[in-house]
C-alpha cells in the first residue's frame, strides 16, 4: 500500500511540476488557445459557416481544432523537457518510469481540457449553438483521453528524433484516426439529438481505444525513454 502511495505521490509531483511551470510561463496554453481560435477563424471563411452548414459540420470543426491544438501542446510539453535536460533528470529520479508517462499524460490532458473549455463557449457564442451538453462533454473527455494517451508516447519519441517538430503529426494522425472518427460521429450524434442507442457504438469504440492504448503505452514507455 505504501508503495502505491509513493507511486501516486511521484505521479502527482510530475503533474504539479507541469502545471506550476505553465502557470508561471503561460507559453503553452496561450499558444494552444490562440492557435485553436485561428483554426476556427480559418474554418469560418473556408467553409462559409452559414446556419445550414453549421448543423452538420460543427462536430468536425471542433475535433479538427482540438486535434491540431493538441499536437501543438504535446510537442511543446515534451520539447521543453528535452531542451532543458529535464527528461534526463526525471529518468534519474528513483520512481517507476510509468509514473513519468502517466504524469506527463495527465498534464497534457489538463492543458487540452483547458483549451477545450475555453473554445466551447467561444464557439457557442460565435455561432449561436449550445455546446454545453453532458453527452458532448463526455465525448470530449473520452476522445481527448485517447488522443493524449497515444500522443504523449509518440511525442516522447518524436522529441528524440532529428525532424521532431514535423514528425509528431505524421506519426500521430494515422494512429489517432479511430478516435477522431468516433469522436466526430458521437459529437455529431449528441448535437443532432440522435437517439442514444445509435451513438452507443461510437462511445464503446472510444472506450475500447482508450483502454487498449493506455495499456500499451504504459507497457512500452520504458523502451521509448531508455538510454
Amino acid at each position: 500500500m505504501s508503495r502505491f502511495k509513493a507511486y501516486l505521490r511521484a505521479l502527482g509531483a510530475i503533474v504539479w511540476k507541469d502545471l506550476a511551470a505553465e502557470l508561471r510561463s503561460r507559453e503553452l496554453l496561450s499558444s494552444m488557445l490562440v492557435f485553436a481560435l485561428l483554426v476556427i477563424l480559418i474554418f469560418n471563411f473556408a467553409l462559409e459557416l452559414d446556419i445550414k452548414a453549421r448543423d452538420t459540420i460543427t462536430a468536425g470543426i471542433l475535433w479538427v481544432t482540438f486535434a491540431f491544438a493538441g499536437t501543438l501542446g504535446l510537442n511543446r510539453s515534451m520539447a521543453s523537457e528535452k531542451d532543458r535536460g529535464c527528461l534526463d533528470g526525471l529518468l534519474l529520479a528513483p520512481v517507476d518510469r510509468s509514473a513519468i508517462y502517466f504524469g506527463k499524460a495527465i498534464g497534457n490532458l489538463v492543458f487540452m481540457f483547458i483549451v477545450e473549455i475555453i473554445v466551447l463557449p467561444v464557439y457557442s457564442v460565435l455561432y449561436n449553438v449550445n455546446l454545453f451538453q453532458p453527452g458532448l462533454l463526455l465525448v470530449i473527455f473520452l476522445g481527448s483521453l485517447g488522443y493524449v494517451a497515444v500522443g504523449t508516447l509518440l511525442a516522447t519519441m518524436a522529441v528524440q528524433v532529428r525532424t521532431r517538430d514535423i514528425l509528431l503529426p505524421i506519426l500521430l494522425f494515422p494512429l489517432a484516426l479511430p478516435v477522431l472518427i468516433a469522436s466526430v460521429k458521437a459529437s455529431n450524434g449528441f448535437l443532432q439529438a440522435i437517439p442514444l442507442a445509435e451513438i452507443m457504438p461510437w462511445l464503446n469504440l472510444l472506450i475500447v481505444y482508450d483502454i487498449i492504448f493506455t495499456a500499451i503505452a504504459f507497457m512500452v514507455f520504458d523502451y521509448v525513454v531508455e538510454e
Partner: protein
Amino acid sequence: MNEKPRLLKILDILTLVLILVAAGLVFFYAPVEKVMGLVQKVFYFHVANAWVGMLGFTVAAVAGGLYLWKGEKKWDIAGLAAVEISFVFFLIAIVSGSIWARPAWNTWWTWDPRLTTAAIVELIYAAYLLLRQGVDDPDRRARFSAVYAIFGFISVPLTFISIRLMRTIHPVVVGSSDPSAQGGFSMIAPMKVAFFFSLFTFSVFFVDLLWHRIRLGRLQDKVEQLRWGNHRI
C-alpha cells in the same frame, strides 16, 4: 554471409516460375467474367498484393514485439524489411484497385472501409520509414520503430471497424457477401484456381523478397557498424 545460400537461389527460380504460371492461369485458364469483362482480371493480383501488404504489416508488428522482448538486432532488420516490401505491394494493390474501380464503380476512389484503411496503412508505413530516417542511433531507431509498428498494428483494425460502422460498397468475394456491395461476383472453379494460386505465388514472392532484404539489411548493419566504429576512435 556473402555467399548467396543455395536455398535462396532455388527460391528465386521457384518464385519466377510461379509468377509465370500464375500469370498464365489468370490470362488463359480463368474465363473472362461476364459482366465486367477483362478488367476483372485485375482482381487476381490485386487481392494477392493486398494480402502481401497485410502480411508484411503483421510480420513487422511481430518482429517489433520480438525485438522489444529479446533485443536482438535481427528482429529490427526483419521488421524494416517487411515494411519496405509491403509498402510497395500495398501501393500496387491500391493502384490496381483504382484501375478496377473505375469501370466497376465508375469512380477511381470511394471512402469505403477497405479503401480508407488501405490508405491509412500506407500512411503508417510512410510514417514508420520517416521515423527511422530521423534517428541516427541504431539502437534507439530499432526501439522506436518496434513500438510504432506495434501501435500501427493495433490501431488499424480499430480504424477499419470505425469506418465499417458507416456503409460499404466494396465487394466481399471470398466468404460472406453483402447485397449492397457493387461489383461482386461469384467465382467458378477455374477462377478459384487462378485466385488461390496467385495468393500462394505472392506469398512465396514475399518470402523471397524478405529474405533478400534481410540479407541486405545485415550488410547495411555491418557498414553502419564500421562507420560508427571509425568515428568513435
